[in-house]
C-alpha cells in the first residue's frame, strides 16, 4: 500500500464510503422516505472533499496511487490511480452527483407522487443513485482492466434501473434499448481486454503498451475494438441512436448525470486505454476520427435545431459535444487532448445546468417539455432563465465560462495537428469545426429565446423559479464554471503536465 496522501486510503474511501451507504440508504429510505436524500448527501460530500484534498498531492507528485490485494491467484490487485487526468474527471463526477442529489430531492418527490410510489421508491432511487456514482468514479480510478470493466458495467446497471423505474414514456423499452447498446459496446471493450491478456500476461493498464511492441497487428485490432466500444458510449454519429431516447426519457436528474458525466467517460477511456498505450496505432486512425468527429458535431447540432422536446434537444446537443471531445482526442496533440479532458469538465458543468433547467421547467409547468408550448418564461422564472443562458453559453464556449478555456485549448490543438502534419484534410476539418461552433451558439440561443423570451405562453401564469433546494445546485455549478473560466490553471496545472507524458 503506497499512499502518498495525508488521509490514509483516501481513494479507497472515495469508493467504499458511498458503496457502504448503498444498503444503508436503502434500509433507511423505507422509514425516512424522501428525506433519505440527505443521508445520500453525506458520502458524496465526503468523497468530494477527499478528492479535493488530494489535489495538492497530485499537483506536487503528479499522481496518487493505492493498491490492495484482491485476487492473488490471478495476480490481480485492486488499484486506484489519481493523476492529472483522472483527478479533474473524478472530481467533476462526484461534484455533479453531489449537487444533483440536492436537485433530485424535490424533483423525485414530485415524480414519485405522480407515479404513486411509496417509501421504497425513495430507497431504490437514492441507493441506486449512489451505486451509479461508485461505478463512474471507479471507472476513472481503476488501474487494471478487470477492475475497469467491472466499474464500467457497474455504471450501467443502476442507471438502467433508474431509467426504467423513474423514467418517462416507454421507459421500460427504452431502458432495454439503453442496456443493450451500452452492453454491446462494453462487450467490444471486453473482447479487446481479453485479447490483451494472453500476450501481455497482465491486466494492468500500465502494462498494456507491451502489446504494441510485442504484437503490433493485434494492438491495432485491440485498439479498434476498444475504440468502437468507447465510441458507442460516446454516441458518435451512426451509433448514437440510443442516446436521445435514453437521455430524454430518463428522470431529469439522471439525465443530468448520464449526459455529460457518463458518456464523456468514453473519451476518458480512449485516453487511458487507447492513446496512452497504443499512441501510434491511434494516430493512424486520426484522419477517420477527425471526419467522424466533425460529422458528429454538425449532425448533433443540426438535430438539436430540429427538436421540439427540450430534453431531446439537450440529448442531441450532448452528441454534438461528444464530437468536440473526439476531435480533440483525434488531434493527437497535448493541447487537443488536454482541451478534450478539460471540455469534459466544462460540458459536464454546463449540461448538468441545462438538464436541471429542463427539470425545473417540467417541475414547474406540470410536465411540459415541448418548446412550442413554452415562451416568455424569463419574466416568471428569471433565475432559471439566467441558468439556461449560462448553460448554453458554456457549451458554446463563451467567456468568462470554463467552456471558453477548454474550447480554445481543444481547437488550438486541432489546428496545431493540421499544421504540423501538413494535412489539408485536417486543416479543412479544423476550420469547419471551429465554424460549426456557431451552430452550437445558434441552437442554444434560439432555444433560450423560444423558452424564455417573447410574450408569455398560454397556461404559464403560475410558473415560477424553483424551490431553494433545486436552485442551489444551479448556482454552485454556475459559480464553478465561472471560476474555471477565469482561472483555468486550476485544471490545466494538473492536466497538461500529465497529458504531456502520455504522448510520445
Amino acid at each position, binding site marked *: 500500500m503506497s499512499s502518498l496522501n495525508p488521509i490514509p486510503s483516501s481513494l479507497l474511501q472515495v469508493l467504499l464510503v458511498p458503496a457502504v451507504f448503498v444498503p444503508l440508504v436503502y434500509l433507511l429510505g423505507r422509514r425516512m422516505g424522501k428525506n433519505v436524500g440527505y443521508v445520500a448527501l453525506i458520502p458524496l460530500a465526503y468523497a468530494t472533499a477527499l478528492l479535493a484534498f488530494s489535489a495538492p498531492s497530485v499537483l506536487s507528485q503528479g499522481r496518487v496511487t493505492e493498491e490492495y490485494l484482491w485476487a492473488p491467484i490471478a495476480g490481480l490487485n485492486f488499484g486506484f490511480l489519481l493523476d492529472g487526468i483522472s483527478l479533474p474527471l473524478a472530481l467533476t463526477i462526484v461534484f455533479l452527483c453531489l449537487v444533483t442529489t440536492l436537485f433530485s430531492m424535490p424533483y423525485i418527490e414530485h415524480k414519485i407522487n405522480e407515479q404513486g410510489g411509496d417509501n421504497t421508491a425513495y430507497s431504490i432511487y437514492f441507493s441506486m443513485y449512489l451505486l451509479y456514482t461508485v461505478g463512474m468514479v471507479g471507472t476513472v480510478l481503476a488501474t487494471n482492466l478487470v477492475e475497469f470493466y467491472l466499474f464500467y458495467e457497474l455504471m450501467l446497471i443502476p442507471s438502467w434501473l433508474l431509467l426504467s423505474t423513474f423514467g418517462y414514456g416507454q421507459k421500460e423499452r427504452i431502458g432495454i434499448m439503453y442496456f443493450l447498446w451500452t452492453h454491446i459496446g462494453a462487450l467490444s471493450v471486453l473482447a479487446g481486454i481479453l485479447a490483451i491478456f494472453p500476450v501481455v500476461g497482465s491486466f494492468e493498464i500500465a502494462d498494456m503498451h507491451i502489446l504494441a511492441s510485442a504484437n503490433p497487428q493485434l494492438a491495432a485490432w485491440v485498439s479498434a475494438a476498444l475504440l468502437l466500444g468507447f465510441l458507442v458510449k460516446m454516441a458518435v454519429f451512426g451509433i448514437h*441512436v440510443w442516446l436521445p431516447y435514453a437521455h430524454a426519457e430518463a428522470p431529469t436528474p439522471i439525465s443530468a448525470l448520464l449526459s455529460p458525466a457518463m458518456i464523456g467517460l468514453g473519451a476518458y477511456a480512449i485516453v487511458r486505454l487507447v492513446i496512452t498505450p497504443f499512441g501510434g496505432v491511434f494516430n493512424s486512425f486520426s484522419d477517420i476520427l477527425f471526419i467522424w468527429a466533425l460529422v458528429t458535431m454538425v449532425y448533433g447540432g443540426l438535430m438539436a435545431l430540429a427538436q421540439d422536446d427540450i430534453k431531446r434537444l439537450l440529448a442531441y446537443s450532448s452528441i454534438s459535444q461528444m464530437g468536440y471531445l473526439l476531435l480533440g482526442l483525434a488531434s493527437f496533440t497535448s493541447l487537443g487532448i488536454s482541451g478534450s479532458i478539460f471540455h469534459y469538465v466544462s460540458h459536464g458543468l454546463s449540461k448538468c445546468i441545462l438538464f436541471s433547467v429542463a427539470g425545473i421547467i417540467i417541475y414547474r409547468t406540470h410536465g411540459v417539455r415541448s418548446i412550442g408550448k413554452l415562451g416568455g418564461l424569463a419574466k416568471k422564472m428569471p433565475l432559471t432563465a439566467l441558468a439556461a443562458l449560462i448553460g448554453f453559453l458554456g457549451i458554446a464556449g463563451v467567456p468568462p465560462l470554463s467552456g471558453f478555456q477548454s474550447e480554445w485549448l481543444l481547437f488550438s490543438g486541432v489546428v496545431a495537428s493540421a499544421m504540423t502534419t501538413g494535412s489539408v484534410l485536417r486543416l479543412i476539418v479544423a476550420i469547419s469545426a471551429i465554424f460549426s461552433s456557431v451552430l452550437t451558439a445558434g441552437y442554444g440561443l434560439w432555444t433560450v429565446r423560444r423558452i424564455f423570451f417573447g410574450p408569455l405562453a398560454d397556461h404559464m401564469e403560475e410558473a415560477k423559479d424553483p424551490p431553494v433546494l433545486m436552485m442551489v445546485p444551479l448556482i454552485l455549478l454556475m459559480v464553478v464554471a465561472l471560476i474555471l473560466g477565469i482561472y483555468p490553471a486550476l485544471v490545466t496545472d494538473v492536466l497538461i503536465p500529465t497529458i504531456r507524458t502520455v504522448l510520445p
Partner: protein
Amino acid sequence: MLPYAPWLVWFLPLAGALISIVASKFSSKLRDGVALAFSFAAVVMAVSMIPELLLGITIHEEAKWLPSLSALGLSELRFGLLVDPLSIFMANVVSIISFAVMVYSIGYMKGESGLTRYWFLMNFFIANMLLLVMSDNFIQLLIGWEGVGLCSYALIGFWYSDEREHWVGGPAPTPAYPPSHCGMKAFIITRVGDAALLVAIFIIYVYSKTFSFTELQGSTQWISALGNTPGLITLVSLLFLGGPFGKSAQFPFHEWLPEAMAGPTSVSALIHAATMVNAGVYLIARVFPIFHTAYWLGYTEFMNFFVVLAWVGAFTAIMAATQAIVALELKKILAYSTISQIGYMMLALGIAGLTAEGVEGYVSSIFHLLSHAVFKASLFLAAGAIIHATHSIYVTDTGGLRGKMQKTFWFMLITALSLSGVPPLSGFWSKDAILVSAIEAGQYGLLAVALATSAMTFFYTLRMIFRTFLGEPSLHLKEMEREGHHVHESPKIMWIPYGALALGTIVIGLSGPFLEDHLKDIFSKLLVTVESSGSIIASPIIPPFYLALSLSLAMLMIGGIPAYLLYVRRRADSQGIVDKNPLLKNLSSFFWNRWHINSLYYRLFVNNVIAFGRKTYDALETRVIDRAFNIILPGLMIGLYNRFKRLQTGVLSYNMVAVVLALLFIILMLMNFGRF
C-alpha cells in the same frame, strides 16, 4: 498614473456591476448611484494614465495565469496588461463616453423595469471593453471581446418580452424584428467572424508558440515559418479580418448592426456606435505594427491583408451610406452611418499598411475613431431624446421639432455637421486626414469611393436633421397633441451628456490640426518605420492637404445642395422624383432592401439551415438510422426467433429423435477428428 490604474480601470466597473446588484436590495437610488460612481472611477483611472500617453511610455504588467503551457514548449500564458499609447487612448475614449451615457441613462431609463439588469450589464460591458483594450495577449483580449458581445446581446434584447412597441424595422411589408431576435442575430453574426479570427490566431500560435502581442512583435521567426507555406499568410490574413469585420459590422458581417437598434437608445449610443463597434478597428490597430513590419520586410503576401482591409472598408462605407439615404428610422440612419464611418477607419488602416511610412493613415484612423465616437454618441443620445418625446422611431413621424426642442436641435445640428465633415468640427479634420493619406499613398480608387461616400453622408445627415426639426409637424405629432401629449425638451440629466459631447466635437475640431500632429508624434514611436526601397513619388503639384480640402468641400456641395433644395426649400417632393424615374426607383428600392443581402442571409443561413436540420431529422435520423436499429433490426431478430421457435415443439418423441441425431453427429465428428 494612479497606482494600479491599468488593473483598476477595468476591475472597478466590474466590481460596480456586482455591487450594484447588492445595492439594488436596499434602494434603487443607491443602485443607480453605485453604477454611476464605478463607471466614473474608470474615467478617473483612464485619465490618470494620460501623462504616459503624452510621453509615449509603454508599461507592461503581468500576473500568473496559465503557466502549464510552458510544459508543452509553448510560451507561458500570462494575464497581462499593456499600457501603451493605443490602449490608453482607447481606455479614455471608452470610459469617458461610457460615463456620459451612464448619466444620460438615469433620465432615459427612468421608470423602466429590469433596471438592475440594465446597470449590471452596462458596467459589465464597460469592464469588458476596458479589459479588451488593456489586454496584452489574444486569449485575454478574446475574453473582453466575447464579453462585450455578450453584453451587446443582452442589452439589444433588453426588452425581452418583445412588446410590439420595441420592434425595429417596417413599415410593412418590410419585415420588423423583435428585440430578442435582434440580440441573437447580433451575437450569431459576430460569432461567425470570431470563428474565422480564432482559426487565424491558432495558426499563428502554432508557428509563434505565443499569444502575446509583445512577443509576436519581438520576433519575425514565426513570420518566416508562416511564409514557408505559400498561401498560408493570405489564409491567415483573410481569416483574421473576419473577427474585426464581425465586431465592427463591416461587409459581409454588417447585417447585425441595423437590428441592434432594438435596444434602448443609450445602449445603441454606447455599444453600437461609440465603443464596441470600434473594437474591430482597435484589434487591427493593435496588430498593425506586426503585419505592417512583416509586409515591408518582404513578406508580400501580407499585402492581401491590407488590400482587403482597405477595399472592404471602402465598399462598406459607400454601401451603408446608400442605405442611410433611404432609411426611415431615425436610429437606423445613424446605424448605417456608423457602419459607413467605421468603413472609413478600416480604409485608413488599409491605406496605412500599403505605405511604408504607415503613420499617416494609422493616425487618421485613430483620430477618426475618436471624433466619430464623440459625435456619434451625442447624435444617438439626442435621437433617444427625440424618440422619447415623439413616441416613434420613424423620421416620418417627426417634423417641426425645432421650436419645441431647441437645445436638442442645436446639439444635434453641430454633431451632424461634424459627422458630415464640415469644418472646423472634429469630423472634418479626421476625415480630411484619411483623404490626405489616400492621396499621399496614391490610392485614387479608394479616394474616389471615400469622396462619394462623403457627399452621400452630407446628404443623408441633412435629410435627417431637416425632416426631424424643420417643416410641418407630422400627422402622428398632431394626433399626439390632440390627445394631450405635448412634445417637450428632454430633462437636464439627458441633454447635458449629449450637449457636453457636442461641445467636445467643437473643442476637438478647434484643436484638430494640433491634436493630429501630436497623435502622429506619439504613434510614430509605436510603429516601426521600414525604409522603403521603392522610388519616391514626385511631390505633387498641389499639396495633399489642400487637394483633400477642396475635394471634400466640393463633395459637401454635391451632397448638401440637393438636400437643401429638397428638404428645406421643398422645391420638389423627393418621393415624387423617385417615383417618376424608373432608375431612381429601382435604386431606391435596392437600397431600401439593404442590397438584398439581409434577406439572402435569412434564406441561406437561417431558413435553409433550420429546414435542412428538420429534413435531415425526418429523412436520415428517423427514417434510416432510427428505423434500422429500432425497427428493422428487432424485426429481423423476431423473424429469426419465430423460425427457431418451431423447433421447440415440446413433443417428447421429437426431442428424442433430436437427441439421437445430435449424438450421431458428435460421434461422427469424433471419428473424423481421430482420422486427422
